[in-house]
């Protein structure tokens, strides 16, 4: 611990490292935005920024759930199938039976939350591997969605239902508001409550958590239940956005959610994540999709670039944080 060591950009090395560890991902985001805006000035216009935020709402909601699961040292692969389940339930209740939209959404959310709870119980109570449990329940959930819908797409052209996605409040598209509310709640939940501290304790060192009297089963179960609830909400937005209920939606959606978490500094070892990081991660994913379209980059290179950016971000995170831990 030399007292007057190297300086980077006029800041003490330790301080610099700490800042990069905390805000490095934000700097990457700002850098991306600046580069794309210089090449294509249209990118930075407010309507496009709102557009990006609207687009990330679905992935953002899923990512917050995923973040909880990963922080406890697990994962949830059912999220994509949960989208399909809630979509098909809405298709039958609203599209076919003409049920009240609020009530139908509530039933849909109850169903996905119940499957989240089931995941949680299997993982926490029976100590099964999260990967195996959710890989299997994912098949079950999608199967149920296919049974409910009979494999057919149901049109949900109902204007009130489509308003869930397309309406604006004070000029801001509703999906952004849903996301903002979830971000605030998740921030409080993860960083200000006892439950949040338990989540980090369980993920960081499960034995220490047990020794300190944390109820591991309850904490983990609640986490997966919240994943179910958030995926259900994402599913409602998705269904309202496309105006169609079908069982083949959401395939591969866990990938973008996991990517957003990882970009946001969530550690797969468990116990490390931040609510703000997940938001930044989701925005970066959104900017990658939107920005590369603006730059006219061929879609083959887009998925390559996405992979490279994620690896670089994680690498940067590891290099920066090695000394802090």
């Amino acid at each position, binding site marked *: 611990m030399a007292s007057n060591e190297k300086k980077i950009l006029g800041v003490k090395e330790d301080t610099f490292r700490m800042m990069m560890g905390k805000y490095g991902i934000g700097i990457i985001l700002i850098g991306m935005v600046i580069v794309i805006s210089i090449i294509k000035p249209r990118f930075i216009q407010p309507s496009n920024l709102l557009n990006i935020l609207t687009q990330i709402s679905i992935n953002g909601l899923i990512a917050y759930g995923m973040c909880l699961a990963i922080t406890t040292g697990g994962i949830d692969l059912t999220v994509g199938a949960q989208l399909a389940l809630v979509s098909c339930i809405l298709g039958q209740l609203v599209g076919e039976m003409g049920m009240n939209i609020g009530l139908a959404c509530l039933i849909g959310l109850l169903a996905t939350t119940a499957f989240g709870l089931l995941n949680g119980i299997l993982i926490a109570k029976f100590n099964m591997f999260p990967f195996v449990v959710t890989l299997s329940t994912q098949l079950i959930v999608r199967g149920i969605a296919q049974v409910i819908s009979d494999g057919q797409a149901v049109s949900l052209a109902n204007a009130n239902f489509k308003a869930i996605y397309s309406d604006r409040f004070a000029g801001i598209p509703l999906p952004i508001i849903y996301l903002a509310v979830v971000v605030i709640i998740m921030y409080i939940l993860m960083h200000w409550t006892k439950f949040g501290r338990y989540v980090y304790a369980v993920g960081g060192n499960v034995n220490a958590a047990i020794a300190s009297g944390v109820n591991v089963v309850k904490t983990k179960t609640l986490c997966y239940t919240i994943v179910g609830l958030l995926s259900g909400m994402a599913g409602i937005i998705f269904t309202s956005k*496309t*105006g169609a209920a079908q069982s083949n939606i959401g395939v591969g959606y866990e990938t973008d959610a996991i990517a957003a978490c990882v970009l946001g500094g969530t550690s797969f070892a468990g116990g490390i994540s931040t609510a703000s990081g997940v938001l930044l991660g989701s925005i970066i994913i959104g900017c990658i999709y939107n920005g590369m*379209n*603006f730059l006219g980059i*061929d879609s083959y290179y887009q998925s390559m670039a996405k992979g490279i950016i994620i690896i670089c971000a994680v690498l940067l995170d590891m290099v920066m944080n090695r000394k802090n831990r």
Partner: protein
Amino acid sequence: MKLKKVLGIALATTVLLGVTACSSSEPAKTGNSDAAGGDVNGDGEIIIGYIAKNTTDPQPSTINSSASEQLDKLKADGVIDDWTGIMDGLSDANKQVDLAQDCIAQGCDYVIITPAEAVASDPAITNLVDAGVKVVVVNAKTDSTDDVAMTFCGSDDVYAGELMAEYLNEKLPDGGKYLHCQGVIGNSAQIQRAEGITNKLNDNFECIAEVPCEWSGEKAVNATHDALAQYGKDLTAVICDNDDMSAAAQLTCNESGREDIICIGVDGNAGAMGMIQEGTLDATVLQDSIGQITAAIDAIVADINGETVEKEYLVPFVIVTAENVDEYATE
């Protein structure tokens, strides 16, 4: 090149000014105005957006690469100022709705879209039209294509089914038992091709099973194996909703020493065409993908030039056999 671009912009601006001057009673509204010269949104540039169904399946890929070639040429010729590049819809309607918003944000005047879903991709098209963009739908219709799109360029899938049925009627006058390998259930191509088959197939044919194979050759192989095991020599034909499946089914039959079974599908992929050339597959119904996208781009050019554009351009299917395969096969 640069000069052409400058000229193009200058021309577009002049046209824009002219139009604005003409319609002085109305303020220069973006969108909706049927401005001649193709600068639909009035920003001084003609930009075409291109939203693909996906970039991995054989048939969409054929459309994409042809579009890419033709749009690059239009740009080089100065007919348009720019195009967005192939935007990948990843076979996901949600993604396509997002891409539609990206096209609006990029100031596209025209957008070409090959829909991933008939119902769920529809908001992509209605959102674009609401924002004043002219939309050309290619290959498959969505629910409101007829009402809001500038034009539709595709093929009549019922006719494809009828062509398959007629070919079998001719080759197998005695009929027999056949297996039907279906595409993704609920997809418009799957529904309409099946309708065409029932329309024209002779009564002496009996369908032993309709198996949902999701356009996948691998699943068609399994279905064919099952049918061969169950019905043996009674099986005379395998009708498939696409070529990936018919080629795979034919290979399965040939391996089992049943070259006599006629497998037929739709698309005219390189794989199937190659098999026809070497004589291992009897026939396919060629979907003229390049014809569809060419019609779409021609329609846009016509609209830029202020010519009238039809609401629909149907590109015919063609039955391809050993006799005419060399005419249609591309390297």
